[in-house]
């Protein structure tokens, strides 16, 4: 009976330990501001314009009644245009808390879930001006008559979430230290009808991203960007 009582006690302790270990600190709230307030409507030469093109939803709907868009606490979808006529779509998805099974969806999945086929172009270094750089994933999504080059990155806490495994381990480590981290997806894309000028399109994305970085203060930069070097 002593053996049984001891095991029972051990089980009860495990339950209690699990409750104690649950992280409670929201370290990286966007300081009470919404993402839409944080991103200016005039970014260098870029001006916010009414959306002309339906931008691809940032959520992954698995079925018609799927609620996965509830994952995000805020979604911003905007179109910016330059004097010279270039147009880009900016999509931002922010989730206050990132957990193992509750993470920002990768754009690859969002596009595929909406019938696009996706060709990954790997990871590129975006020059943010000065000493700053942002590692971003590039891909091309195609569907009937629509051809969309995409540059994006996902920040989870202080991590540039490039690999799913690293993201998991990062969230686990932060969680065990009692911290809950937020996550944000920054996606820049443009829609065209042909593959001609692919390099040009990515150069335009980079130009926009650089302007965005330049227009923000240090605190806001840290909310949207994960400049090289901060990734562990």
């Amino acid at each position, binding site marked *: 009976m002593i053996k049984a009582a001891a095991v029972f006690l051990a089980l*009860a302790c495990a339950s209690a330990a699990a409750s104690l270990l649950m992280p409670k600190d929201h370290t990286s709230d966007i300081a009470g501001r919404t993402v839409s307030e944080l991103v200016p409507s005039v970014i260098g030469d870029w001006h916010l314009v009414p959306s002309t093109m339906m931008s691809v939803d940032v959520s992954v709907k698995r079925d018609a009644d799927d609620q996965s868009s509830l994952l995000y606490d805020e979604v911003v979808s905007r179109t910016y245009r330059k004097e010279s006529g270039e147009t880009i779509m900016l999509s931002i998805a922010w989730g206050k808390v990132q957990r193992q099974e509750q993470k920002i969806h990768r754009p690859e999945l969002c596009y595929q879930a909406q019938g696009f086929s996706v060709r990954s172009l790997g990871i590129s270094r975006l020059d943010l001006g000065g000493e700053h750089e942002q590692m971003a994933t590039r891909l091309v999504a195609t569907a009937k008559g629509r051809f969309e080059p995409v540059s994006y990155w996902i920040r989870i806490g202080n991590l540039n979430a490039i690999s799913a495994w690293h993201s998991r381990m990062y969230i686990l480590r932060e969680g065990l230290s009692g911290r809950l981290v937020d996550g944000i997806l920054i996606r820049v894309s443009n829609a065209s009808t042909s593959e001609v000028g692919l390099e040009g399109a990515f150069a335009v994305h980079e130009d926009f991203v650089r302007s965005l970085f330049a227009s923000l203060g240090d605190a806001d930069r840290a909310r949207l960007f994960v400049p090289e070097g901060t990734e562990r």
Partner: protein
Amino acid sequence: MNIKLIGGAASASSPSGDGRLLGELAIVGVGLLIVYVPTFIDVARTFWAHERGTSGPIIIAAVLWMLWQARDHLRTVAHSSDVYGGCALLAAGLTLFSIGRSQQFYQIEVGSLIPTLAGIVLMWFGRDGLKVLWFPILFLLLAIPLPGSLLDSILLPLKEAVSSSVATSMQALGFPVARSGVVLTIGQYQLLIADACSGLNSMMALTGVGLFYVYVAKRANVYHNMILLVSEIPIAFLVNVFRVVVLLLGTYWFGEDVGAVLHGVMQYVQMALTFACFFLLDWILGRVFRAGARARSPSLGNVRRG
């Protein structure tokens, strides 16, 4: 499975010893329920409710059934125990549980059940007990929900494979089917192969149930068992392709309303058909190998040569 009876243990078979053992196991069982019931409630909400890893409940039911079936067998090993080894495993299991549960890392949380249970078995029934229960305990591996990111990387190629098989086979039969990624077009209708149509759920269910069946049925012929296990995934895949073909044809011939009704009905038909094919294969293999065994026996061998 080999039953090992080690003599000299009277207490296990005496009624009072039995009663005491039952009492102890009841206390531990209540403790296990307190710890793991919340876990499975969360897993059900996060995964099963969204049609992800829906074979989990079947696996757990199978494990409970196997544990119950082993009760007489366990009584014969109740005298031996390995308290230190058991404590070590239990401590490892409960540490994993605390980490997994507090961080919502469901794979660690559910997986912790394996060392936890193994530790408890060691403490009461020793190594002999583990020899009796190794299969049901390891079987719990199949109850671990697949992480979303892994699932996504399996689902997409699977859906592509389903769509291309459907398109190819229907084109061969002369139907006007076109495919673009996971979108199939037949006549004026367009169908998106969603996650639920990938057939992954029936694959996982058949993998679990098939393994369980092979363990329980104890077929003597190794090849019979191996063929059964290897054919699980192809069977589930082909039945799913068949389902999508039926859906497409139903929609094409009778319109979208009929297609929608079919969609609801076919998921049950698909599950039933998957298992029916599996057991049909088992029956065929049984006949083939029995015939083979007869042909190899010496007397019949002579007849054949003569």
